[in-house]
């Protein structure tokens, strides 16, 4: 339908086609020949030509070429020399142990590995306790050195395999070019074009609508199959949403939310929890110490009661609870500030307010540990802390609660094993079965020790746990790498499945 095709042409398309039709037969134009700002920008020309070609109104003759050029890395390497050259020179005087050879060559670890590999491959290096030169280097130098120099001098072509080697080493890159020459197709020449001023309307504007211009215009049909710009959709964060959903289970089980600060004194983070002051988890290898503020003195009465249980003394108004940890309790340690290493301090603060039994509290909050970051560990993680206190509350309630939680979360039966935490006794670890990972630890918990509860003034038994919800969420969301939870990539976040 030639009329429909003519109608579908935008203003730029019409003008480009007219220009091409004005060419003498046999002549062609390149993209840039058609650029004529302000209307015909390079982008508009390119898009219009593609659409004209799709409508079969123009023909393109394409020629391909490629050129290998030095990369930034290649240019930086030139004056310094390739790693193999630098190592070769470092070994000129005498064989050296690997570490010394590396230092003498000034190479970093990655470059040194490359240098050793290259020399070894070329048969120029003897490995052993010391690295030693072997074989004779051709007078022109290493082969990649020769290729790199040729490229740098702009001596044009080097052998394809030589170029490929440089590309593989990141020293050069090959750029491919396609140049197109355009001419009208027979259909394009034959098409009757609308006269200027009678062009079909593209995008509607408020001017068209307010002035009524649309009434006399032809509304140009669009190529409805054309590619459209990527839209960044807006969602809640998949992981945070999962946590908020998990929270619903706890609300349904009668738990109220607790909150607390991220920076805690060691008194609240550890000492109140009867964690020995020399416990490894409290070392500079595991906890983050906070600086930049002078921490106030902790409340003397609480400090006194906590010191008493640590040292195995009697807390005023109580029977003697236990032999404690022995040794001397250090109030200076109690005052130090840390990023909270678990969410149990939130429970401590809740209990300090003396809630009326029975009580149930949860906190899905962030905690910090000085782990090395990898696919399974991060220094920042979310934990679901919970406590359940009241007359007659026992380990049975805790284990039953794990079963209820797991059932509600859809993770099935919980298998419970004894374990050890300094602040609970008994301590248990609940495992759930994952279809591919097997039994995974999900529910650590126990009964708070009297040494924790009595100094806080709590008279009823309290069950406590701290679930690694980040791990559960990763399993549920199919996330393999924990770092992905912090990646903030808009495409991943916006497209997370509902």
């Amino acid at each position: 339908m030639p009329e429909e095709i003519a109608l579908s042409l935008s203003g730029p398309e019409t003008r480009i086609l007219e220009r091409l039709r004005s060419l003498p037969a046999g002549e062609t134009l390149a993209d840039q020949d058609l650029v004529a700002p302000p209307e015909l920008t390079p982008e508009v020309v390119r898009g219009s030509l593609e659409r004209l070609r799709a409508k079969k109104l123009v023909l393109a003759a394409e020629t391909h070429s490629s050129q290998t050029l030095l990369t930034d890395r290649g240019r930086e390497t030139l004056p310094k020399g390739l790693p193999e050259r630098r190592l070769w020179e470092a070994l000129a005087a005498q064989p050296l142990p690997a570490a010394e050879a590396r230092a003498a060559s000034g190479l970093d670890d990655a470059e040194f590995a490359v240098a050793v590999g290259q020399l070894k491959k070329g048969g120029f290096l003897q490995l052993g306790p010391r690295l030693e030169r072997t074989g004779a280097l051709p007078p022109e130098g290493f082969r990649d050195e020769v290729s790199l120099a040729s490229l740098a001098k702009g001596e044009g072509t080097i052998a394809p395999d030589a170029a490929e080697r440089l590309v593989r080493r990141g020293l050069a890159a090959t750029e491919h070019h396609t140049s197109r020459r355009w001419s009208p197709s027979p259909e394009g020449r034959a098409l009757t074009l609308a006269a200027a001023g009678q062009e079909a309307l593209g995008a509607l504007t408020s001017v068209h609508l307010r002035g009524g211009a649309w009434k006399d215009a032809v509304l140009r049909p669009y190529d409805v199959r054309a590619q459209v710009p990527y839209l960044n959709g807006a969602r809640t964060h998949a992981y945070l949403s999962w946590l908020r959903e998990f929270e619903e289970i706890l609300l349904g089980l009668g738990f109220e939310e607790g909150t607390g600060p991220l920076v805690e004194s060691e008194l609240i983070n550890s000492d109140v929890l009867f964690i020995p002051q020399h416990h490894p988890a409290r070392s500079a290898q595991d906890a983050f110490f906070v600086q930049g503020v002078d921490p106030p003195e902790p409340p003397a009465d609480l400090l006194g009661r906590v010191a008493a249980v640590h040292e195995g003394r009697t807390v005023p108004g109580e029977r003697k609870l236990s032999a404690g940890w022995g040794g001397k309790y250090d109030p200076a340690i109690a005052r130090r500030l840390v990023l909270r290493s678990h969410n149990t301090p939130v429970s401590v603060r809740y209990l300090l307010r003396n809630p009326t039994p029975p009580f149930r509290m949860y906190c899905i909050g962030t905690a910090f540990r000085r782990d090395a970051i990898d696919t399974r560990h991060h220094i920042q993680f979310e934990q679901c802390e919970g406590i359940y206190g009241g007359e007659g509350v026992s380990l049975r309630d805790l284990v039953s609660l794990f079963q209820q939680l797991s059932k509600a979360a859809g993770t099935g039966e919980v298998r419970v094993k004894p374990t050890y935490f300094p602040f609970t006794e008994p301590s248990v670890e609940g495992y759930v079965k994952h279809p591919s990972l097997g039994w995974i630890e999900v529910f650590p918990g126990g009964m708070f020790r009297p040494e924790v509860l009595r100094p806080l003034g709590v008279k009823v038994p309290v069950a406590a746990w701290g679930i690694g919800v980040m791990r559960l969420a990763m399993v549920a969301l199919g996330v393999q790498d924990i770092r992905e939870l912090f990646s903030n990539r808009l495409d991943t976040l916006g497209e997370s499945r509902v």
Partner: protein
Amino acid sequence: MPSSTLSRPLLHRLLGRSLSAEELEQAVFRTKGEVSEVTEETFRFEITSDRLDLLSESGLAFALAGVIGSAEGSDYHPGGAPEPREHPLEVSVDSSVAPLRKEIRMAIVHAPNGKPLDADHLHELIRYQEALHATLGANRARGSLGLYPLAHLAPPFQYAMEGLDGIRFTPLPDEGSTTTEVSGIEFFDRHPMAAAYSPLGRRRGMALTLRDSAGHILSLPPILNAARYGELAVGDSAILIESTGTADVTCRQLVGYMLLPFVARGWRVNPVPVRRRSRVDTGSTVVGVRTLTMTPRQLAEVIGSRLETTEVTHALRRCRFHVTEARGGWTVTVPPWRPDLIGPVDLAEEVVVARGLASLEPVGTPPQTAGHRTPATRYFRKFLEVMVGMGYQEAHTPLLLPPTLSEHFTAAGTALTIANPASQDFSVIRTALTPGLVEALARNASGSYPQRLFEIAEVVVKDPAADTGTRTETHLALVDAGEGSGFARAAAVGEHLARVIGITPVREPADAPGTISGRVAEMRFAGERVAILGEVHPRVLTELGIAEPVSWLELNLSLLWKLKGQD
């Protein structure tokens, strides 16, 4: 968790029967341990840090015998302190050791008749000693152990700090090698063990020594024993166990644990007194037993039901304790290798574990409490819908920032920092969410625009009035990138937020680092700055590799909540 590779044939020999891999796993499931990598010869055993007594074959066999029912109870009772005599079996502590390593504890063990130390036992002792060094000993820093053949020694012993020039010492050789006598100076210069541990046993020109009355050096604690006087051999039947350290509790526990691989094989134990000037500690509390009692009520509180007295007694005996039933409960004799048992709840746990956790009957009580979020959280959550509704994607950024990023947006000295960061990338505690969000935009710089992100999360600011000197606040921040993302966009979002919050703040010029001067405003309400907004400076954008304009807004939700009088 602490772990050790143990010999399976040795475990079976000590246990008097073989366990299949599955039986071993099941038996261990009833302790707090785990087994893995089970072969015919060895297995890897992991245990929680409170049960280091199980890290040797003898210790594990002693406990598992109770689990599988082949033995129960315990008849451990140490001998008394030695009689006074001319050459008393005791150790004198010179006050010179105090600044470096002030504590020492000892015990003596004697083999049963005709059953002296054999090769398996010797190797087990060495492995266990190393396992204890690595765990409780904190790599020997808090405490360390030494074992000596008593037959070669002339008591009493002397623990002191001496000048290196007075020390002549033959280091304990590695297996199969020999060593010769060296001076103290040579030893600390050359020996690999000195290289590893010298800060623990040497200070300037002085080193810790343990000598006997004949002047023989037994060891340079905690670095290395001497050949012969500090070298156990197959056939030894009397052994001195010694522990030095910085904390008495650790030394006591180390000696206590080390007793078990002897006691489990029928060796007898005697204390060794420690003399400091005229004061003598007999050492009997180091090797002696303690008693703990538990009432039926205390037990029921933990497990949630009452058990028959005899059942409890039996369970405790299977945990290898001597138990007596008394009116109103049980009295348990706690041996020195169980320092983890300090109160009645610890005994209750022993009963729970011995009976198996699966024996706990489920409780079906419905909650008697109403679940709810805090009113503040409920309020903060409402902003999720508001922000997503305006087309902002929720982000999740770390609390800790790299200093380079923090410095772009935060005035120097405002933020708290980490004294021991694991990496500089996570070393400053954020006081605002905006820097992390701008960094998130930088990660998306190759994507399409507009890009709109928001986050509702916690920040930490200094607060002298708070009990930790800091205050954790919840903020809402947003960033908006792309054509048209200027100051006006952020201000328009701010106006919309004010309308949904129901306040009419005034917008005033302000200053903020990293932002174009003259394009920053604060939104003030009730005399406080509830929000601040602006347009990121092109210098910062260029440094972060962002090629689109970015505006931002940060709202202090905690403050807003307080101002609205709902806290």
